């Protein structure tokens, strides 16, 4: 029983309609995004189901997950705060920003806060170099950009995420 196909019937047919019928595999990346929305990462079952829908081998689907950095096959923090430290941002203090933010949270870049809420990651250019320091937050709801940031404003954003989680009854 293909749970993804059942649960997202309409969305999947909308995705499929974008591509010629004989090129079902073009839908693999949109489907991976769809499945990743559920859990924040891709389970073996999800990859199996996507392989069935796109008529691909499951190892091929897994190789795509491995190639692209926005797909995750391991659970991480519920929220991923991805700080750009690429050259143009670094010229405007991004490295220092990341270091001080991590110090404040008591974790290293790449690590997750003890409550499992937030993982801090260092990423490459996000096409907002003129508004450094900046980061994006990847969450089950999608991506949000935060620009012209300071450690104080970032800590406020994190407090906001934490509060909204608690509002939801902490179903992390």
């Amino acid at each position, binding site marked *: 029983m293909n749970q993804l196909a059942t649960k997202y019937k309409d969305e999947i047919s909308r995705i499929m309609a974008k591509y010629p019928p004989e090129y079902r595999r073009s*839908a693999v*990346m949109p489907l991976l995004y769809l499945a990743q929305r559920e859990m924040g990462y891709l389970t073996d079952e999800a990859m199996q189901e996507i392989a069935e829908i796109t008529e691909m081998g499951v190892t091929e689907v897994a190789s795509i997950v491995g190639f692209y950095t*926005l797909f995750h096959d391991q659970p991480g923090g519920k929220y991923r705060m991805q700080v750009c430290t690429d050259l143009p941002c670094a*010229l405007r203090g991004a490295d220092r920003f990341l270091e001080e933010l991590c110090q404040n949270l008591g974790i290293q870049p790449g690590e997750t806060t003890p409550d499992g809420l937030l993982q801090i990651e260092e990423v490459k250019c996000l*096409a907002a170099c003129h508004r450094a320091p900046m980061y994006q937050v990847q969450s089950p709801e999608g991506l949000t950009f935060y620009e012209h940031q300071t450690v104080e404003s970032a800590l406020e954003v994190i407090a906001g995420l934490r509060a909204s989680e608690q509002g939801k009854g902490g179903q992390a």
Partner: protein
Amino acid sequence: MNKYILLRHRDIPNLKDLQIYQENGGFAAFRKIVTGLTPDQVMQEVKASGLRGRGGAGFPTGVKWSFLPTNLWPHYVVANADESEPGTFKDREILEENPYQFLEGLAIASYAVQANTSYVYLRGEFDPLAAGLDRCIAAMEAAGLLGDNLFGTSYSLRLHTHLGAGAYVCGEETALLESLEGRRGLPRLRPPFPAVVGLYGKPTVINNVETLTNLPPILENGATWYRTIGTEKSPGPKVFCLSGRVKQPGNYEMPLGTTFRKLIYEYGGGILDDRPIKAIMPAGASSALIPATEAVLDTPMDYEAVAQVGSPLGSASVIILDDTVRMDWLANKTAHFFSHESCGKCTPCREGTYWMAHLTDRIAAGKAEAQDVELLHDVTSQIQGKCFCALGEFSIMAVRSGIELFRADFDARAKRVES
């Protein structure tokens, strides 16, 4: 008076609203060509305008379109919205604030090569922008600007967005096509070129977002008008992305051929803390370093003149470096970028970028010996000219020019251990 041709939203509030866009002349060009011009006439007009691709290579757009064989169908147009070169943030502004001008450009290109289905490939991080474009496309369908038998003609067009998922190499056009076909983004062997064997094996045009955004004004006002802007060989307006050690980083729309000095000191407000400028990277992290002499500052930013002072203009992602920037540190940054983004298909790039990252780590940490700088330079020679795609060639630019032009920065770090 209106100042902008591409960033028109800065003149006209709410231009991202379809009604406002149409009230300001939007889709008049598309309607005019579909109802009144043959595809060949459109192609001739674009050729005559001299428009050159804004995605990096500067290839004449109309000429590129004319390579599509007319005995092989269907044709496709794919808009390249991967925008991942460090220092580049112009396509994002266009997609966010002036999306209909871009979509009208995509529709014009599609008509010119008679594509009935076209795609916009966006980097995965542009997910919210893709959602915005999807809404625009739906509004265009509802307004009869997309769909079957447009304006009562036999021409039909549908547009779709497609998201990448975090891979710089997918901006390279053949890797982009692989990705759109549901594969890992590994570049294809060329020839055959995408113009002949492209998406799904069919003739395909790939154009940058900014390139396409130039089309509505060209078809509206004509090639002769367009050529009054910019230079003889590099006509038209360009969005320059200014970043790094300047007071006012941002996107600046100016005619091609404007000088570095004007961009940096007039528009950018000069260097942070009024420090001395040291070097310029005109093409993002893929640039060679250009020492910022007075002569360089007075160089007009067009494709030919910038290449003459040491680096291609690329997508005009101008990164400014002042005297606080150590070039060994900079080389370390770019080396890590390319080592992270190498797709791994060919050995010189995969291994070479790894070694550049490793050696520049040692140098920047002050743990290197003097011969490590020489070794690093040798590694760049091992990569140069031996890579399967341009990413590998880009990867050495800053490192190699850094060593050759700013050797003292490297030696100062390397010698530290011995003393």
